[in-house]
């Protein structure tokens, strides 16, 4: 009995923070989603029933934003996974072959750096790379492409920058997977004269498929719910609504337009998606 009490005591301070960040906002969002609250016009909170939900399900900007976020998630996650797998394979070769510890340290540093630096730093670099006049990408291609202000290109430009920033997540998970494959398997393949590509395809990928599945599903929900800083810094959601991903849309309606009822409705929709996905994932994870 005493022991249980101590357990509760240890957990309690964290629960205060979690209550503050998650439980109170969750219920307040649900409450507000049935109300109209535009503090710029009136301080009154007005009950409007399902009106906000009807608005959200019919508003082009909202549906378009969900679509863009989905495209962003699928494209960037697959791009990151492919680059990550390839780089993990290269890094595993370096780890196996180099006897000098310093070489490993240097390569690990280089490959983890995009993930470790603040998104703000990465974003200013990409702004300069993408600059239509004195940017490096156009200089390299000999073109004058508006990477960030052309509505057809902005999303893919943001995806590329974000994939660069987030790719180390896959890289190091896959590397750990490759390093855990018994070396006899890899050596046997070498003796049989397998090329690098064959080794990757027939030995490594089949061995790390369960790991890929876990990493992809974890990263997918992160991409869907947490993309914000990079978009804010590169395009601010524009041009027009070309890169207005869902978190940016919620931010627009809340702390920019101060339409708290609409913002709360969008927040509830996003939390429902997270809950459904999270429960599904954890339930499957528990079974496995």
């Amino acid at each position, binding site marked *: 009995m005493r*022991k249980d009490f*101590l*357990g*509760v*005591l*240890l*957990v309690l*301070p*964290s629960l205060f*923070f*979690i209550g*503050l*960040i*998650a439980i*109170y906002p*969750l219920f*307040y*969002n649900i409450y507000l989603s049935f109300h109209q609250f535009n503090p710029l016009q009136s301080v009154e909170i007005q009950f409007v029933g399902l009106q906000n939900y009807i608005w959200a399900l019919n508003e082009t900007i909202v549906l378009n934003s969900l679509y863009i976020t989905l495209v962003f998630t699928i494209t960037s996650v697959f791009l990151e996974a492919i680059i990550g797998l390839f*780089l993990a394979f290269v890094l595993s070769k370096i780890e196996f072959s180099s006897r000098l510890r310093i070489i490993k*340290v240097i390569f690990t*540093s280089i490959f*983890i*750096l*995009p*993930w*470790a*630096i*603040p998104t*703000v*730093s990465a974003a*200013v*670099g990409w702004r300069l*790379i993408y600059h239509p*006049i*004195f*940017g490096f990408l156009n*200089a390299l291609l000999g073109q004058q492409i508006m990477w960030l202000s052309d509505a057809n290109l902005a999303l893919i430009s943001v995806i590329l920058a974000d994939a660069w920033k987030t790719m180390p*997540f896959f890289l190091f998970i896959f590397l*750990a*997977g490759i390093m855990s494959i018994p070396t006899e398997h890899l050596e046997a393949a070498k003796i049989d004269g397998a090329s690098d590509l064959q080794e990757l395809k027939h030995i490594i990928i089949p061995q790390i498929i369960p790991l890929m599945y*876990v990493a992809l599903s*974890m990263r997918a*929900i992160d991409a869907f719910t*947490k993309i*914000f*800083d990079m978009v*804010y810094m590169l395009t601010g959601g524009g041009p027009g609504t070309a890169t207005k991903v869902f*978190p940016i849309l*919620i*931010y627009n309606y809340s*702390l920019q337009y101060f339409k*708290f009822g609409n913002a*709360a409705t*969008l927040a*509830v929709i*996003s939390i429902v998606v*997270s809950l459904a996905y*999270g*429960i599904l994932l*954890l339930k499957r994870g528990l079974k496995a």
Partner: protein
Amino acid sequence: MAVIILFPIVIILLSSFKPDDEIYSVPPRLLPNVFTLEHYLNLFTLFNFKEFSINSLVIASFTALFSTIFGTLSAYGFSRFKFRFADKILFFIMIIRTFTPVALLFPLYLVIRSFGLLDTTMAIVLGVTSLQIPFTIWFMKTFFDEFPKSIEEAAMLDGVSDLGVLWKIVIPLSKPAIAVSIIFAFLAGWSDFIFSLSFSQTPRSMPLTIGIANMLTGYKIYWGELMAGGTYMMIIPLIIVIFFQKYLVKGLIAGAIKA
């Protein structure tokens, strides 16, 4: 390969030392002809970077402190004690990690405002810490679950109290895992964007991230200063990468592979 990965970082670094006419030259050149530190000086004389730096350090340090202390204690509670609803609470904490921070932000904004905490670094610490705690709990719990209980049981037979065991035996043996928690929380505070953007209004509480973001919204974009600011913000993460990369990799892969 490594060159391509490093390219954006090298661009920021090299451009930050170029005088304006070289930054705006068409076509751009990679290496500076003339090496200048004027952009770095401007950051401190024109852009309040002294205040921003102090605020960023305060936010990152307190986030690391609070989330590690509370997260570690809770992780130990979840790992070693049985109490009602423990599983359900833990499940909910894990689910929170999948929420969109922005969705939780503006109710929190109203709370912060009613406490009179708007435009303080503590408001930002509160936000970042709350989102960091689930990671810490989960990472530390995985570690404690695999920690051999026999050591603790032996100490308890010797008459050491529960908290004594935690303080004198478990914590000293958990240093590597605690280091991971501290480093991740520090980086989360150092890089925070959303909470700072929402809760900070003047240089009084503004961190470097928002200081740099605001440099993009003026009529004139100061590219040199922007690159200098971007480089300046990378210094601490770079040091962490070089000296603590083992811990970074451990935390990064913790989700998919058990710590």
